[in-house]
């Protein structure tokens, strides 16, 4: 009785074990069939943004007889960055990845140069801005194509009536929804912002500008530093935090932090949105996603919103800009198809169709595409995002925090939120000298 049952049970156990091992192995991909390409997109916060992308991809796939797998990967919880790291480590995954700002540099040794695509595209549509060049042109080669999907400006979005009533600031007159420079817009400086912020804070409508370590805070404060010409690290990699310009911006910052909300130091990317949507804030620095949610949840606030460029300082006017790039992994099995697909998706009609679908949130990298109708049409109020993309008459430059430091240092300044943290330290009572000392120690650590 004993031996047979023992045998069968052992065999069964072995079988079970074998099955358990084999189960996952079934899913191993055994090389790609010719004419197959997979692409990872940024998962758009407007769900229909994914749908229109999918449609365009399918159209291309049908025309070219290529099987395309499109995945949409969220940036929440840095999920997209984790995925990129996973694919780089495992040397397998999508053929095309959507690299957020710094990731092209982080993985440049594993990305295929894409100069040919950029040559075609710039031939068609003209040049791209210097931020894109800074982030994706490495040793003279383009490593990623700046795309519109997920690329955003983060200029101010203010409450028209509140700014007018409490601070006497008529943002619609300053930046009307029509081409042309206005004299009033020249007065839109960081000092003007400070005055307006003081007035609004007195009326309990603080400016929702964060001093946290997430990108909204970093971008906004980064453009403040740029406006004062305050470089923490110069383009050659020298720590230049002990400069007059940095001191100047900190002196300004000392006044600014006094009128920011008490919880500004713990702001994350959602805090400013909440502040605006709940009607407790007069101005935030954010793409129109906050406005769009307000339109759904608090329409009265949405009707009162107006987007416009960043403030000017002694060194110029900078609007925070956060681009995405499409790059082809060097381990990709189908680089030709991948490049063709990218070229196709960056054609003007396709970019415009996607941009329209997402109410103008996406910003195309080519200046020649900044005339899409969508930014004129979006409402309420009509023209609210007309000045969201940089217009030639804004006299503003797109900017990413920590530019022009060498990108491998800049990425750390950006991700560790050094600049907003400096202001946060001011807010919690540190002196300017202490802040500079802290920052220079921190920065030395980045230059290893």
């Amino acid at each position, binding site marked *: 009785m004993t031996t047979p049952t023992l045998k069968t049970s052992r065999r069964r156990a072995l079988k079970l*074990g074998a099955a358990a091992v084999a189960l996952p192995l079934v899913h191993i991909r055994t090389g790609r069939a010719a004419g197959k390409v997979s692409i990872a997109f940024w998962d758009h916060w407007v769900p229909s943004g994914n749908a229109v992308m999918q449609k365009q991809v399918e159209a291309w796939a049908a025309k070219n007889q290529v099987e395309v797998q499109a995945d949409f990967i969220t940036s929440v*919880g*840095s999920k997209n*960055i*984790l995925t990129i*790291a996973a694919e780089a*480590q495992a040397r397998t995954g999508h053929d095309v990845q959507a690299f957020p700002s*710094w*990731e092209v*540099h*982080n*993985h440049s*040794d594993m990305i295929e140069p894409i100069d040919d695509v950029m040559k075609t595209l710039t031939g068609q549509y003209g040049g791209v801005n210097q931020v894109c060049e800074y982030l994706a042109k490495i040793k003279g080669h383009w490593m990623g194509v700046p795309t519109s999907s997920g690329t955003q400006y983060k200029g101010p979005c203010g409450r028209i009536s509140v700014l007018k009533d409490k601070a006497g600031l008529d943002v619609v007159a300053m930046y009307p929804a029509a081409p042309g420079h206005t004299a009033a817009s020249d007065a839109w400086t960081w000092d003007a912002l400070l005055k307006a912020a003081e007035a609004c804070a007195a009326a309990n409508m603080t400016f929702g500008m964060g001093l*946290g*370590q*997430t990108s909204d805070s970093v971008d906004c404060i980064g453009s403040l530093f740029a406006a004062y010409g305050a470089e923490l690290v110069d383009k050659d990699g020298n720590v230049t935090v002990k400069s007059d310009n940095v001191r100047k911006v900190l002196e300004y910052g000392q006044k600014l932090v006094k009128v920011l*909300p*008490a*919880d*500004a*130091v*713990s702001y*994350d990317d959602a*805090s400013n949105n*909440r*502040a605006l949507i*709940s009607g*407790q804030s007069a101005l935030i620095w954010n793409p129109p996603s906050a406005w769009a949610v307000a339109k759904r949840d608090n329409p009265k606030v949405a009707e009162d919103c107006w987007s416009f460029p960043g403030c000017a300082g002694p060194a110029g006017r900078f609007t925070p800009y956060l681009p995405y790039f499409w790059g082809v992994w060097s381990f990709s099995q189908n680089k030709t198809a991948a490049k063709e697909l990218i070229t196709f998706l960056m054609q003007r009609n396709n970019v415009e169709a996607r941009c329209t679908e997402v109410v103008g949130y996406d910003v195309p990298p080519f200046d020649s595409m900044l005339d899409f109708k969508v930014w004129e049409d979006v409402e309420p109020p009509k023209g609210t995002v007309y000045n969201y993309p940089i217009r030639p008459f804004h006299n503003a430059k797109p900017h990413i925090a920590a530019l022009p430091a060498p990108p*491998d240092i800049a*990425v*750390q300044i950006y*991700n*560790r*939120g050094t600049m907003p*943290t400096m202001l*946060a*330290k001011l807010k*919690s009572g540190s002196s300017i000298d202490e802040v500079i000392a802290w920052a220079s*120690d*921190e920065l030395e*650590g980045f230059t*290893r």
Partner: protein
Amino acid sequence: MADGTSVPVGVIGAPRRVARKTSSLKRFTQQRSTIAFMLALPLILLVACFVIYPALYAIYLSMLNKKMTAFVGLGNFAFLLKRHTFQLVIFQSCLFAVTAVVMKAFLGFVLAHLMHNIPGKNQKIWRGLLLVPWVIPLALSTLTWWWMFDPSYSAFNWVLNQFGFANVPWLGVGWIARFCTITVNVWYGTPFFMIMYLAALKSVPEQLYEAASIDGANAVQKLFFVTLPMMRNIIAITVLFSLIVTFADFDIVRILTAGGPQDMTHVFATYAFQVGIQSGDIPLGAADSLFMFPILAFAAFFVLRGVTRRTKEIAT
């Protein structure tokens, strides 16, 4: 065990039988240990493939430069130790883990005793209610906490406002934020301690208490001379397990504060994530995580040595 070759040659009958017996015994033990090894093999393979190998690989990674092109030895570790931010991370990790574990152990102990006091048939519902924090997936319950801590319109601040207090920037000020992360960890982990201790309490023989009562011991004495010694092993193991898990915590800090404000809540895992994944310096991130190992190994060595020694004492 005697081995077959050493059997004296002179005697024929009985010793041969002995020899056969010993060799069969030897074969038996051999066979037995082969089977034993086969049974343990899945465990060994699992640990070797998905823990030891990647751990060794992590050590290798931690000795590369940022672009992973050159070997820098212990350079990353030396570099990290010199950074003020990292010194802060070490301090905070220890503070976070030690405070949280002590709190959890204490509260768990109290709760287990309270639970043990009430009649068995009523325990079920109370245990069920108290286990809820441990049962909800941590990443999701932390989101709830995060939202309750929200400074502008948080559930907690609303209550404070009702009583006329000002808003507290829960996650905005270093020490308050540290307090919050620890609180969430304690909230999540206490039920586990409670259930482990309850199990231990139930296994203390009732006679021991009766004996102690007859000897005139009061409640405190019973606690110190009966309960605690009987529970020592389980307390040690639970504390060790929790210490390790808490040290390595990623979910709570990542979701609540992501290390902020001003790096004042970063622990090893979240800092490694920021350095390694977000800033693209995988070797430095790996070096950072590896700092956990010696600290924990040190704790584990003492705890486990104590446990083994006590187990032996009980056995003999």
